[in-house]
Each structure stands twice: as structure tokens, then as C-alpha cells.
């Protein structure tokens, strides 16, 4: 790669405008094809048998009756997905999660699957599969799972990250620690100390589109997979590895995506569908039901967090400490580690220490959820920060401004910050009209800050110029939030042509080099970098072709505003050649004109946001209503401001649901009690006010246009902002998310009882 990603201040023509998205008409007319919209001739219906037990040894599975049922074409168990992971522990966990081997580890864990000619036959076949379980004691609560008396989920788990290797196994897979300075000394200098414990319940990303795919394995060993995913190249790698295929022989095509938010970064059904198709010799379509999505995809962690923060009378924080316990399902994760890194990232601290514990529980394997792990840590920290400001007698915003991190601050997770936006978002909030609006009875206002790292990754892009001068842009990052529009704007900007001349598509895995998935808020950051690089490579070719057409040295040709221009007085009468003129002549100047780029887009800029929330609480019922909500966030550069605002609003809306209603509820039997949208209540339009947004632009020095990621940070502050608002409305500190009506009433009653 010979590409300079450094930021250069410039005036934009296309970037920063708000054209209609290229996928918009198809989506509003129903033409867009989502995962379940693909069909093939002769396709079978796949269905999965799932464990009804939270924890059980699988003694035996008898599939003989199901196999004899007319219309059943294949039945598979773990025996059809042998362990080919070659010691890769993370891949083995994915394999075991796709199809349980020796033990069922949660209610909903797949134990067998069938492919049949229709759904009715497939369901009948599932009923004919006999599984002999030995039910084991289970644990679903994160704090309970850490106790010595808790049932062991994996007897080979010895806590990693301790100074001495433990002699006994436990449900704690790892301890991680971050920080600097001396917190003991720091607390010694504090005039006020706030110390509290917090809990958050497990939530699901709540994407509207369930997981869906069609797998077709040919008798020659090649295969196709059409799937709803955030990363079709990653799915190809994982599926190929799990099924013992060469990656190049598996072509994966991503569909439109009805929401992912981190939940579609992980394979569940896809290896199963491929294994069924391989065994049946026919295409297999596998669509998860909503019940299956809740029980057996990847929700976020439940958490238990202790916070201690000390400050002097003048409002300077002297020390901050957090212990964070995150559930990861029955497999090892790094979720508490991320929480420990993000917890105090907004602040300038001389003495800080965070410790994270990854905890196994009999729940589904935790997956990423939009800035994974950060919202829960922010809830705990920002609640304690608010409380500390009150104790000192300072305004909550002023207290945060006084302690906010800035350029040159050593972050709580280690490195020193470059230019960052936490201070500007706080100043914007301080001056926002929302902060001065009057409140009524039973109403409260809260605000909170949030941080997310953002990252880049491997990215490959092709830019092809047609003979009519139109431009095809093939990208490998799945468009989850309007990136085809933003990347078309970037291509138009770089080439100096109109947005309407560019058509962006998401290419399949056989048409483009490898791309990491769309996660870490990297879609627009990474693919815009690759698009700029590809466009610059295409411009180089365009200049060469123009030089041929003029019969002058290529060094005498420059590219400006979509045209080749011959520079120098000696070429003064050559006029200029448009991109279209050069493209039309391309057949006679060397053939097609294209620009290609493959790069690792490192150097993503960290992102900060500050949110304000007004809420009304009914003290008789505990019911809440969000009255007003404002998001202020640094985008670096908003390529398509409408979609940046959409990301801000979407994150806030999901955070509101998480803060007020959403939670996984398990019975004593370890079974999920609410696997459906009637009992697991995500916010709908009528629950939400119009969410106001304010985009700040502090350029990322490591992107040519200054772009930072914007997709995730917006979900970090809401839990805390809403908790602060509710606490201010009712006069009781809320410490347990979600703040559902029963939980608010219980907190009020506990306060009254003293």
C-alpha cells in the first residue's frame, strides 16, 4: 500500500451533502432482498432442535425415526460437524455453539438439525429426534456464577490473568486490569468519595430481521451461501474452517440487512445450513424464528459493577476505581476487559484502576452489541460522577468539564490521546437550549458522557469506470447504515464528478479481496479510505490515458474537478478532457479504466458523545416517559450528515429501550421466560420523542477527510443519562438497569422504608 492517510484540510463539494441513498427506493417499496428473500430451485427447509435445559450432558441422540420420515432429506448432529479447528479455542467455541457436542450449555443450544421438503415435515422430524439428557445444575446470574458454590460450566476453566495460576477451576475465565497512578494515595487526597454497586441485565440487539440464509453445496465441493450478515468475508472464513472447505470454493453473498448492531458478526445457523445442504445434496434455507433469535443468538452481557470515585472540594477527581463482572455465556469472552478499558475513558485521571472479570453462565454466547460493554460501564461511572458532583455541590456538567480528558491526557486504558471531542461535546451541552428548558412535576433531567474506541481493519475496494463515464464502486463492507451513499459521495468527491454518476454495491466474496466485517464503527471510516485510495489510483490511469490522447508526457497532466488538464503554457490550447471523454476513448487507449485498493485502515479516531435526557416518572406506577432527548457527538467529518444523525438517533433509541424496559428474564429452571417482542419490549415510535442531534467535527488526523466512526458511541451514554434523569425525578439513586416500572417502584418503596 502506498497511500498517505493523513488528514488534509480542504473544501468539500460532495462530502457533507445529503443526497438520497441508493438503496432507499428498494427498501421503501419492498424490492430490497433480505436474508429470507433468497430462494433456489429444489430448496429444502432447515430447522434446528434446541435444548430445553440450561445445562445438561447429552448422553445420546437417536435420529433414526426422523430420518425415516417421508420428506426428510438430512438430519445432522455434532457428528456431522467434526472438530476441524486444530486447537483454535475460539473457533472450537463457535463450533460447539453452532451444534452442542457433549453438553447443552443453555436453554436454546442447538443439538440437532433437519432438512426436509417443507416446514411441516421439518417440524415433525424434530419431534422424532430423541435426545437423552442428564440435567445438570445451572447458573444464570453473573454474581452467583462467581461464587465457589456455583455449578461449574466448564471444568477446564482456570482463571487467566492472575499472578498465580489457580489450582481449582471456576466460572471466571479471565481477570484483566488497567490503570495508572496510585488509587490508594488518590483516595487519601479526596474530600468526597462516592462508592456504589450497579447491575445491568442482559439485553438483545433487537434487530428486526432474524438470522436467515440459503446454503447450497454442490457435489464438486463448491458452495454458495446467501446470508444476512455484517461480514460475509468473515462468515466465509469461519464456515470454510468449520466445514473443512477451501475458502475460495465458498462464495458468500450478503443480503440487505435488517439490523445487526454486532449481533450479526457471528455464525450460528450458517455452518448448520451448509452441513445440511452437504448431506442432503440440495439447497437448504434456514431462517431463525424470533424465539430462536432470543434464545440462541448473541445478546450482550449482564453485568455487576462496583465503582469508587473520590474528589477534592474544588471538584478535581483524585482517584477512580471500578470492578466489573460481565457474563459471557458459556464460553470465554473479553467483554469485561472492554468495559474496564472504556469505564473512565472520558476523564483526566492521575490515579485510576479498573479490574474486569469474565464470567461463564448458562445463557447464550455473548456477542457484540454496539460499542460492546461500554454502555454498562458508562452507566455505573456516570451515575457515580453525577452523585459525586451533587455531594460536592457542583453542577454536573461543570464537574465533568473540569475533569474531562483532552489532547495529551493519558487515557485510563493507557495511551495518550490525540485531538478528541469530549470537551467540545460537554461545552456544547452546557450551552444547549435543552439544558435551560423548564421541567414540570415528577420530571427530571440527566446527562452523561460516553466513549468508544472505533477501529478500522482490512479493506478492499474496486472502482470501475464505464465507457459512458459512470462509476461502479464495489466495496466489501456490508452497508448497515447508509455507507453506500457515503462511499459514493467520497468517490464523487475524489474524482470530481456528480454523486449520481457513482453506483456503489457490496460485492460478494468471490469478486473482491478480503474485508473485515462492518463492526467497530469501521464501515465508512475504512471503506472511505479504500475508496479514496482506489479513486486516486483510477485518476492516475485517467491521467495516463489523457496523456496518450494528447500525446504529451503524463507528468504534464493534472486532474481537477473531474477533468484532465494539460499544465504549462506549451499545452495552453489543449482545453481539457472530462472523465467521460477519457472513458469513452478507453478501448483505444489501453482498455478498461479502474482503480483498486487493498489496505489496512488503522488509525481510527476515538469518539466521544454527551447526551441530555428529560424524563417523567409516574410515582404511583413507576412508569416512565422520555420527554426530550439530545445527542451531541463528534463525527470527525460527517460524510453524509443525515445518516450520521440517523446513527446518533438509533443508538439513543436502543439505549432508551435498554435503560427502561429490555431484559432477559430467566426462570428458576434456567429457561428464558420472554423470548418474543411482546414480553421483551423494545421501544416503538410512540415511545420516543424526536431525538435531537448536534454533530461536532473534530477531524481525525489519520483519515484524509478527518472521518471518525460514528455508529457505536451513541449507545454509550443513554443508560447513564436516563438513570440520572430518573434519579433526579424521583430523588432516589437508580442502580439497576432496566429501570422498569416494578424496579422504580421497588426503589421508591425501599427509600420510603428507610
Amino acid at each position: 500500500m502506498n497511500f498517505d492517510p493523513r488528514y488534509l484540510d480542504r473544501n468539500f463539494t460532495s462530502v457533507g451533502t445529503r443526497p438520497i441513498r441508493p438503496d432507499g427506493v428498494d427498501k421503501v417499496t419492498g424490492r430490497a432482498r433480505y436474508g429470507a428473500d433468497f430462494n433456489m430451485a429444489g430448496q429444502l427447509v432447515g430447522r434446528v432442535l434446541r435444548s430445553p435445559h440450561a445445562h445438561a450432558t447429552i448422553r445420546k441422540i437417536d435420529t433414526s425415526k426422523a430420518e425415516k420420515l417421508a420428506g426428510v432429506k438430512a438430519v445432522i448432529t455434532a457428528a456431522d460437524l467434526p472438530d476441524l479447528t486444530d486447537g483454535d479455542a475460539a473457533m472450537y467455541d463457535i463450533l460447539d455453539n453452532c451444534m452442542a457436542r457433549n453438553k447443552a450449555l443453555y436453554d436454546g443450544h442447538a443439538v440437532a438439525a433437519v432438512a426436509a421438503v417443507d416446514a411441516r415435515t421439518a417440524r415433525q422430524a424434530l419431534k422424532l429426534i430423541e435426545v437423552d439428557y442428564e440435567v445438570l445444575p445451572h447458573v444464570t446470574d453473573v454474581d452467583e456464577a462467581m461464587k465457589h458454590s456455583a455449578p461449574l460450566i466448564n471444568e477446564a476453566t482456570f482463571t487467566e490473568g492472575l499472578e498465580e495460576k489457580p489450582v481449582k477451576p471456576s466460572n471466571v475465565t479471565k481477570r484483566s486490569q488497567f490503570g495508572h497512578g496510585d488509587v490508594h494515595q488518590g483516595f487519601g487526597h479526596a474530600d468526597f468519595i462516592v462508592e456504589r454497586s450497579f447491575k445491568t441485565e442482559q439485553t438483545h440487539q433487537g434487530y428486526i430481521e432474524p438470522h436467515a440464509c440459503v446454503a447450497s453445496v454442490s457435489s464438486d465441493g463448491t458452495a454458495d451461501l446467501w446470508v444476512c450478515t455484517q461480514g460475509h468475508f468473515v462468515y466465509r472464513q469461519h464456515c470454510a474452517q468449520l466445514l473443512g472447505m477451501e475458502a475460495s470454493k465458498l462464495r458468500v453473498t450478503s443480503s440487505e440487512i435488517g439490523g445487526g448492531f454486532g449481533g450479526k458478526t457471528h455464525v450460528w445457523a450458517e455452518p448448520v445450513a451448509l452441513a445440511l445442504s452437504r448431506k442432503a445434496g440440495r439447497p437448504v434455507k434456514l431462517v431463525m424464528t424470533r424465539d430462536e433469535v432470543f434464545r440462541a443468538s448473541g445478546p450482550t452481557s449482564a453485568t455487576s459493577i462496583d465503582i469508587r470515585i473520590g474528589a477534592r472540594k474544588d471538584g478535581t477527581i483524585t482517584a477512580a476505581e471500578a470492578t466489573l463482572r460481565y457474563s459471557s455465556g458459556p464460553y470465554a469472552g473479553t467483554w469485561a476487559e472492554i468495559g474496564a478499558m472504556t469505564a473512565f475513558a472520558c476523564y483526566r485521571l492521575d490515579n485510576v484502576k479498573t479490574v474486569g472479570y469474565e464470567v461463564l453462565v448458562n445463557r447464550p454466547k455473548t456477542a457484540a452489541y454496539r460499542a460492546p460493554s461500554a454502555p454498562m460501564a458508562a452507566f455505573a461511572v456516570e451515575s457515580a460522577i453525577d452523585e459525586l458532583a451533587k455531594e460536592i455541590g457542583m453542577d454536573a456538567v461543570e464537574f465533568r468539564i473540569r475533569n474531562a480528558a483532552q489532547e495529551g491526557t493519558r487515557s485510563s486504558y493507557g495511551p495518550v490521546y490525540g485531538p478528541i471531542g469530549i470537551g467540545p461535546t460537554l461545552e456544547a451541552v452546557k450551552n444547549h437550549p435543552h439544558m435551560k428548558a423548564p421541567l414540570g412535576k415528577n420530571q427530571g433531567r440527566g446527562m452523561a458522557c460516553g466513549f468508544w474506541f472505533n477501529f478500522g481493519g482490512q479493506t478492499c475496494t474496486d472502482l470501475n469506470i464505464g465507457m459512458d463515464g459512470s462509476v461502479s464502486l464495489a466495496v466489501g463492507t456490508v452497508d448497515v447504515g447508509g455507507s453506500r451513499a457515503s462511499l459514493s459521495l467520497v468517490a464523487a468527491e475524489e474524482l470530481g464528478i456528480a454523486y449520481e454518476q457513482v453506483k456503489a454495491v457490496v460485492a460478494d466474496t468471490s469478486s473482491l479481496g478480503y474485508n473485515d466485517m462492518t463492526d467497530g464503527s469501521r464501515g465508512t471510516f475504512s471503506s472511505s479510505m479504500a475508496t479514496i485510495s482506489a479513486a486516486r489510483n483510477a485518476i492516475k490511469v485517467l491521467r495516463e490515458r489523457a496523456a496518450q490522447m494528447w500525446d504529451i508526457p503524463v507528468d504534464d497532466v493534472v486532474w481537477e474537478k473531474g477533468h484532465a488538464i494539460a499544465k504549462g503554457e506549451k499545452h495552453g490550447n489543449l482545453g481539457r478532457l472530462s472523465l467521460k471523454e477519457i472513458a469513452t476513448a478507453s478501448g483505444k487507449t489501453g482498455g478498461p479504466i479502474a482503480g483498486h485498493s487493498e489496505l489496512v485502515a488503522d488509525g481510527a479516531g476515538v469518539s466521544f458523545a454527551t447526551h441530555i435526557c428529560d424524563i417523567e416518572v409516574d410515582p404511583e406506577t413507576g412508569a416512565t416517559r422520555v420527554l426530550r432527548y439530545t445527542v451531541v457527538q463528534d463525527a470527525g467529518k460527517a460524510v453524509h450528515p443525515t445518516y450520521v444523525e440517523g446513527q446518533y438517533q438509533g443508538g439513543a433509541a436502543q439505549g432508551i429501550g435498554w435503560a427502561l424496559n429490555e431484559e432477559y428474564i430467566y426462570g428458576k429452571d434456567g429457561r428464558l421466560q420472554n423470548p418474543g417482542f411482546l414480553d421483551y419490549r423494545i421501544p416503538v415510535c410512540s415511545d420516543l420523542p424526536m431525538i435531537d442531534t448536534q454533530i461536532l467535527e473534530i477531524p481525525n488526523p489519520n483519515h484524509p477527510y478527518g472521518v471518525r466512526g460514528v455508529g457505536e458511541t451513541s449507545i454509550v451514554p443513554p443508560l447513564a443519562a436516563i438513570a440520572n434523569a430518573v434519579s433526579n425525578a424521583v430523588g432516589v439513586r437508580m442502580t439497576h438497569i432496566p429501570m422498569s416500572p416494578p424496579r422504580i417502584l421497588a426503589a421508591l418503596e425501599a427509600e420510603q422504608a428507610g
Partner: protein
Amino acid sequence: MVEVTLWGSLGTAAGGKNKVDIEAKDIRELFRKLAEQYPGLEPWIDRGIAVSIDGVIYRDTWSKELPQGAEIFLLPRLAGG
């Protein structure tokens, strides 16, 4: 020679050190020499470590040079949503 700071848990795997001096010109050489000199770090490197150079985080650009005097900080490789 560059000074490399390890995050808390990684320091434990390196025998309790939170700073190490390594003669390395780029990230690739840094990881190779870390694994040679501190075998306890090898599984962590295999699983993925990000490198912060003067505050800019690199996850995959192993050819990135380590400038003399730069602040080098090792971090866990992150997941995102």
C-alpha cells in the same frame, strides 16, 4: 531501543513487568522479540494485540515503524458491534 508499556494483565504474563525495552524497528519485530524474550506473551500475541504508537492504535499494520522516543502501548485487540 523502544520502551513498551504493557497493560496490567499482559504485564502479569510477562513476569510482572509493566514496561520492557525492546530493540525493534516495527510492530512485526516487536512481537517477534517479545515472544522470544517473554514466552508467556506468545499466546496473547497469537490471540491478537493492538499497538498504540503515540496514541494511534494499530491492530493489523505490522509493518508500522516504531519511532525512537515514541510512546508504545500494548492493548487488547478489541471487538466491536
